[in-house]
């Protein structure tokens, strides 16, 4: 054992100094750097995005109840080191002299909001600046629409219940104004200390009590578990994951894409490691044969190599982790200016452990098989250089690599069906490249006689190193494919986001438009130059039974801790046409013949929460009247279009007899504060819902996700370049000798270089062609099945793949072999 250790470490140290292990170490280091860098980055940006998403709740978790919350919750939160605040919400009429407006009063305690920020201004509808606290006792911050409706201004005194409170600022937005329309009345924020003086809370008052909690994720998760176990019936817990559908979609997409990108880096690095290991083995055949001649057993020679690689993996993991950490730290510092969140969560150590574990797995899958071969080299090689190790068993050569790739793939995808798609695609791709490689060898044999000496030499090289050529083809092809795939998907994501979030997206919702004022309202809005979207009717109703079973019997509460759709009052609408942002996923949309039929179409979120199917019967209570409807279809709604959309849509001719109002959304150019104030005056019953700030939040999240994706893309690019380097390096020794021979025989340096260029350009071109086809196919599946986006075929990636592949591989090959060709032939032949 001592001899083994001494031998392994001594030769490792010396070989390191003589530069022999450079490529292998570089491949491993870049692999770990890419992996941990991506891991840190994904972790921290994911946490930052979650933090941003938290601002929609004004907290990480939010406990709501119609009854006052127990002090026990807050004491427990304090004990666990969490930050907390209370918010008490009630509807009340606010007076300014004789003018009055029904308002949503929010009495908050210090610390509110725990996530996100309040924006305040000196006059209604003006651009807001972030607040540094909450209103002092005796002061209030009414929303623009409230102040405009009652004709007040900063300095006015508003009467709220029995109290008279001074307006010191105008509330432009608050983080938890939410994406739903439950709170139609304009907001007013006051200090909770003033609440008793208002005497608004009386027996029977409709009051909501909220507990807001925030901390780092582990503490929050622990506290959430505690709360779920201790909360009383009727108390509702909301987490970031329940936050508005728009933010949730963005987080989901970003997370999925980043993990895909990190997997791509890992796979590329695995290829680089395999190539570097092949070169390592090739360079050590003589040494191992000599050791065996001198009396070393097969186990000893294997142990020496394994030990060396293990030490190398450890060192490379340390160096790579440090590099990865520095890279993401630098990256996050440069993008910090873009982030709304000033406090970025600290990096976790998980990527470090994951990085090392994956590095070991990659090493085991991709470096172990060639090492096992190395130990099988016969001692006879010391006398006969042409004797190599016997050909490996196919299972042993490729089994570990395949197993590791599949395990890595599944660990990222965690979705059986998609895993099968991707694994099958990958296998088909590798098999396709293998076949294409054989085709290339065949073609090379046919074409050799028809080209000039340089091309003949280059192409003959491909033909002669048949196995090596195929392996390189697979490596280059895979490398180019994943880079192209990333490019395609990123473009698709970006263009889809741009499509759904154009700069003139609706930024105001108008709810509660009386039927009688509908036409006049639309005329007014359009006269002011704003573009309106579709106008939908809106009727309040309550779901009472599913297939005759009352929803109160427990079925509605099956999703513990979540707001139940069934126990809430619903906004219902009817429509003849299916919106462009709606897609039927089950059942069918109605035809004019169905007009008057009690049919209903549900959004997938609603359907999933209640577990209902097409054909089920839903009973509603609308204004005291019972109505039963059959589920005709399930719709997938793209919420991020900011068009009016409803969970429950009826067929026309059913709801018209009930009294209802209308809603719409519109885009107002910035600086239209006066217009909106006038609108609030002319249509006092219309609720104006300003979603500009919410939109900005969503945009900021998407911006950050896009930037993260690009950064990860850079990591992947580095990994791809390492593959290229490793691939070229793997044939360096042979090339050195061949070049010397050719030059001895009279070939000029230019001819040899042209041959190298011809060989690599051909290799790159074919790899690029196959990669383009493979990536287009994979992109189709990924975008349509996984990311749920539209896929449009684009020829550009194909051209980029072929031309880029040829240029990249040719230039890379040329750069890496230049020194080989430049070396005087005599020096090579002598050595």
């Amino acid at each position, binding site marked *: 054992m001592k001899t083994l250790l001494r031998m392994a470490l001594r030769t490792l140290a010396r070989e390191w100094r003589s530069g022999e292990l450079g490529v292998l170490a570089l491949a491993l280091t870049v692999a770990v750097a890419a992996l941990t860098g991506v891991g840190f980055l994904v972790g921290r940006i994911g946490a930052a995005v979650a933090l941003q998403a938290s601002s929609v709740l004004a907290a990480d978790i939010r406990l709501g109840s119609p009854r006052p919350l127990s002090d026990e919750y807050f004491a427990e939160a304090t004990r666990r080191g969490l930050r907390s605040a209370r918010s008490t919400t009630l509807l009340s009429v606010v007076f300014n002299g004789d003018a009055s407006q029904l308002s949503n009063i929010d009495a908050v305690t210090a610390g509110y909001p725990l996530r996100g920020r309040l924006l305040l201004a000196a006059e209604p509808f003006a651009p807001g600046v972030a607040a540094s606290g909450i209103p002092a006792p005796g002061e209030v911050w009414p929303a623009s629409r409230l102040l405009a409706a009652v004709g007040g201004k900063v300095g006015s005194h508003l009467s709220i219940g029995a109290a008279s409170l001074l307006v010191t600022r105008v509330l432009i937005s608050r983080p938890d104004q939410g994406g739903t329309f439950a709170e139609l009345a304009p907001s007013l924020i006051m200090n909770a200390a003033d609440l008793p003086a208002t005497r608004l809370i009386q027996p029977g008052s409709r009051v909501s009590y909220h507990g807001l909690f925030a901390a780092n994720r582990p503490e929050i998760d622990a506290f959430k578990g505690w709360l779920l176990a201790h909360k009383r019936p009727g108390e509702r817990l909301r987490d970031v994951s329940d936050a508005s559908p728009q933010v949730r979609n963005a987080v989901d997409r970003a997370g999925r894409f980043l993990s895909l990108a990190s997997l791509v880096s890992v796979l590329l690095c695995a290829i680089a490691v395999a190539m570097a290991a092949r070169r390592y083995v090739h360079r050590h055949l003589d040494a191992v044969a000599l050791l065996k001649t001198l*009396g070393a057993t097969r186990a000893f020679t294997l142990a020496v190599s394994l030990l060396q690689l293990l030490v190398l993996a450890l060192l490379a993991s340390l160096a790579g982790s440090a590099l990865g950490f520095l890279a993401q730290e630098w990256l996050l510092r440069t993008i910090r200016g873009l982030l709304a969140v000033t406090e970025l969560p600290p990096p976790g150590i998980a990527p470090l452990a994951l990085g090392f574990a994956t590095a070991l797995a990659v090493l085991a899958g991709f470096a172990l098989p060639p090492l096992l071969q190395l130990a099988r080299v016969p*001692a006879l090689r010391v006398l006969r250089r042409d004797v190599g190790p016997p050909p490996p068993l196919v299972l042993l050569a490729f089994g570990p690599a395949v197993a590791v790739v599949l395990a890595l793939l599944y660990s990222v995808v965690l979705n059986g069906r998609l895993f099968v798609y991707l694994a099958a695609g990958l296998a088909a791709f590798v098999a396709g490249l293998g076949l294409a490689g054989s085709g290339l060898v065949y073609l090379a044999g046919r074409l050799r006689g028809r080209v000039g000496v340089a091309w003949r030499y280059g192409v003959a090289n491909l033909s002669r190193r048949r196995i090596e050529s195929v392996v390189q083809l697979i490596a280059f092809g895979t490398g180019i494919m994943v880079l192209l795939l990333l490019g395609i998907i990123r473009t698709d994501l970006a263009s889809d986001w741009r499509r759904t979030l154009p700069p003139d997206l609706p930024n105001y919702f108008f709810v509660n438009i009386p039927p009688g004022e509908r036409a006049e309202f639309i005329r007014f809005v359009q006269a002011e130059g704003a573009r309106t979207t579709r106008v939908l009717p809106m009727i309040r109703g309550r779901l009472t039974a599913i297939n005759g079973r009352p929803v109160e019997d427990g079925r509605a509460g099956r999703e513990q801790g979540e707001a139940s759709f069934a126990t809430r009052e619903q906004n219902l609408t009817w429509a003849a046409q299916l919106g462009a942002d709606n897609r039927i996923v089950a059942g069918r949309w109605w035809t004019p013949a169905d007009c008057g039929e009690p049919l209903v179409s549900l959004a997938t979120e609603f359907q999933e929460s209640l577990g209902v199917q097409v054909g089920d019967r839903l009973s509603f209570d609308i204004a005291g009247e019972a109505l039963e409807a059959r589920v005709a279809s399930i719709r997938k709604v793209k919420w991020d279009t900011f068009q009016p959309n409803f969970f429950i849509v009826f067929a026309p001719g059913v709801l018209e007899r009930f009294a209802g109002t209308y809603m719409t959304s519109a885009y107002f150019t910035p600086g239209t504060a006066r217009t909106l104030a006038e609108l609030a005056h002319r249509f006092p019953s219309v609720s104006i819902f300003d979603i500009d700030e919410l939109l900005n939040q969503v945009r900021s999240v998407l911006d950050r996700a896009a930037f993260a994706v690009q950064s990860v893309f850079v990591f992947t690019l580095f990994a791809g370049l390492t593959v290229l380097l490793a691939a070229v390096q793997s044939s360096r020794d042979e090339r050195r000798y061949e070049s010397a021979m050719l030059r001895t025989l009279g070939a000029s340096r230019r001819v040899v270089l042209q041959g190298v260029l011809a060989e690599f350009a051909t290799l790159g071109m074919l790899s690029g062609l196959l990669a383009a086809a493979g990536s287009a196919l994979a992109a189709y599946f990924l975008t349509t099945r996984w990311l749920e986006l539209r896929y449009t075929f684009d020829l550009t990636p194909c051209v980029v793949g072929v031309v880029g592949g040829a240029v990249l591989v040719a230039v890379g090959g040329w750069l890496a072999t230049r020194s080989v060709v430049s070396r005087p032939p005599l020096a090579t032949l002598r050595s």
Partner: protein
Amino acid sequence: MNNRLTPSARTGATLASVLKAENLCKQVSSPEGPLTIVDHVSLEIARGESVAVAGPSGAGKSTLLALLAGLDLPSAGRVLLEGIDLTSLDEDGRARLRAQRVGFVFQFFHLIPALTALENVMLPLELAGSGEARRAAAETLARVGLRERTAYYPRQLSGGEQQRVAIARAFVTRPAVLLADEPTGNLDTATGARVGELLFELNASAGTTLVLVTHDAELGGRCGRMLRMDAGRIV
């Protein structure tokens, strides 16, 4: 696996015979059909004897050497090294036997480039589990005149110096048999002569049996016995 060389493995050799080949054949397949490289060769080499194997290129000299060392297995026949049948041992068993009994000198030196001269010489001792590797290696290097070069790497040494390191490595285990494949074939005449001198000097003082494959008539002529090979046979 034969970890120890048991008496039952020792068969049929006289005590004086260190190396014995019985009806040795080696066939390989080639595009033109089976090719016989060593054709029914039988020989016996006594302890302390020096034998040169000469012959034209392709005569099968190096293959015979590989078979005698157990680096390769014969298609037929057997090799007895100090009475132990090499064909009855597996690869690791033959390696262990070489570590204890056989020394090698090659045409292309075959030093490990990552190790210093001293470390290269220590290597066979370490593989055989000797605790005195460093001291013995330094002494042997001194004997071949490389006391000042112990810390040098192979690439820092001349061809003659590299071959002297290889000779030191071969002798450091005090092997029963030293096999040399064209030991001067890669050196200029003067250096080759000096290396040959050293080889015979060490051989004489250690009482080692020497089997030498060479084209060098002068080197071959210094051996006690000369075997000529042609087309796989001893003629």
